[in-house]
């Protein structure tokens, strides 16, 4: 199977600054991929490289089988892009802008009605974009990225400026596209949001790809402790602490709750003992390490 995206040893230098250093990865159809990194880590440069807006200093990039910075522009017909802070000419209406972009992609202009409905802009479609709120512009940006059912979607910080309800709708749209076989690359800061919605995580730090894998795989590699929270009845704190005896480091919260940091191997034993304590235990929660913690872990490992 040919990859939608195939990046090999790509390096991008701006003068002395290495924005992207020796990055390699391939993306398959139907994947939802989170591109994670703090500001200036190289996320946007990586997306621009994939769009062919900048050329790699070294290495090769193939997008949908073409060199994005080459002469061929056919591949871009099957590609959707939402820039980090999307902007449009404010004198035109939403419908006019979408019609222009649809024509550029050689897509029927009738299709934009459906798109406007999908992002909830139907009622504002004939108003000038100058009157739109930030969230509405972001929705219009998403609508233009969806023109022509792209096979590859590159969304740079797509949910900034969207209210929570709209975010949910946004992720529904992304899921729908993925089910149809599209590959979606999401770059974001809001990691908890991406956690349940992406199969694969790429973490970039200072231009390097420091981690690449599914969230579960990254959890195994990082071997971060899960948190096991045990709530006990009043006055049973000491009993329980001795029961767990030295198995894992723990903290006490407001007199009747423990929180243990447990590695994968310790976790089962901890649960078994807590369950053995019978009526003393009121509740048990197991919280796996979040994407935030994984991210922090890989960044720490990277720093000297």
């Amino acid at each position: 199977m040919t990859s939608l995206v195939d990046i090999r040893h790509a390096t991008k230098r701006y003068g002395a600054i290495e924005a992207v250093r020796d990055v390699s990865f391939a993306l398959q159809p139907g994947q939802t991929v989170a591109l994670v990194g703090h500001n200036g880590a190289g996320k946007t440069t990586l997306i621009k490289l994939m769009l062919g807006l900048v050329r790699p200093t070294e290495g090769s990039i193939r997008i949908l089988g073409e060199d994005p910075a080459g002469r061929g522009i056919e591949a871009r017909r099957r590609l959707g892009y939402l820039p980090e802070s999307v902007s449009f000419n404010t004198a035109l209406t939403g419908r006019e802008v979408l019609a222009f972009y649809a024509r550029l992609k050689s897509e029927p202009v009738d299709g934009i009605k459906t798109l406007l409905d999908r992002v909830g802009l139907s009622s504002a479609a004939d108003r000038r974009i100058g009157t739109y709120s930030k969230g509405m512009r972001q929705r219009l940006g998403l609508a233009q990225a969806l023109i022509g059912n792209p096979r590859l979607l590159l969304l740079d910080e797509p949910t900034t400026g969207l209210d929570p309800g709209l975010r949910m709708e946004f992720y529904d749209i992304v899921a729908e596209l993925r089910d149809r076989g599209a590959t979606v690359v999401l770059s974001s800061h809001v990691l908890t949001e991406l956690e349940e919605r992406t199969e694969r995580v790429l973490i970039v730090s200072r231009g390097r790809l420091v981690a690449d894998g599914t969230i579960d795989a990254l959890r195994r590699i990082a071997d971060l402790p899960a948190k096991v929270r045990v709530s006990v009845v009043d006055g049973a704190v000491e009993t329980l602490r001795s029961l767990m005896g030295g198995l894992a480091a723990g903290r006490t919260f407001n007199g009747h709750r423990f929180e243990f940091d447990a590695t994968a191997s310790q976790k089962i034993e901890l649960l078994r003992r807590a369950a053995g304590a019978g009526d003393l235990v009121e509740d048990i929660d197991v919280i796996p390490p979040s994407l935030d913690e994984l991210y922090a872990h890989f960044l720490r490992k990277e720093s000297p």
Partner: protein
Amino acid sequence: MRNVLLIAAKEIQESLRNRWVLAMTALLAALALSLTFLGSAPTGTVGARALDVVIVSLSSLTIFLVPLVALLISHDAIVGETERGTMLLLLSYPVTRGQVLLGKFAGHLAILAFATVLGYGTAAVTLAATGAAIDGESWIAFATMIGSSILLGAVFIAIGYLVSVLVRERATAAGIAIGVWLLLVVVFDMVVLGALVVDQGRTISDAALSGLLLLNPTDVYRLLNLTGAASVGTFSGMSGLAGAVTLGPAVLVGALAVWTLGPLVIAAMIFSRREL
């Protein structure tokens, strides 16, 4: 080609929407009309050919105004869109940078042509309606004037794009555009004139002068209009120069075409190498 037309159409749509076209047409029409009626006052009613006088006044106006208007719409074409972030999105679409530049050029030129034809045309039509006698030769000279004004506009749109792809900020582009305007419209002629006065015809031959004037598109335009038609030349005060400069209309039109294509091609080359 389709993409070029799409971008040109969008450019025209935007300019209509933000009333650029309206403002430009109104400005040109107002100035042309006032020059037509106030400008003909000195010649009185005996003034032989009314339209010829208008051609002289209007082409003098064009030399100042059209380059300014053309630079005004073009200096911001690339750097402005890049700064606003709309260029990034546009270039992620299946369109080449050459097509973007060419489409913008076609759109901007269409707007300028529309404003010129309508603005100046109003003056000529009004003149004819007031009963002035206008013969065929004058109409041809007038049409030439409008055509060459549009060509002069094309030159400065292309120069504006070159400025626009060279800089990183809109303000810089605006500054350079004003500088270019001053240099080509005001300073160049003063320097040439100064040189001619100092030289007293000793080293600068007629051929050298012709070459010198080809270096400035506004002078090419001036030669084309103020010396071209014999009837116009007598009013323009350019007849002395016309005798010295031996450049046919074909050479002059060719020079304007080179002045358009040169900056446009260089701008396209720089733009396609530019990293966003």
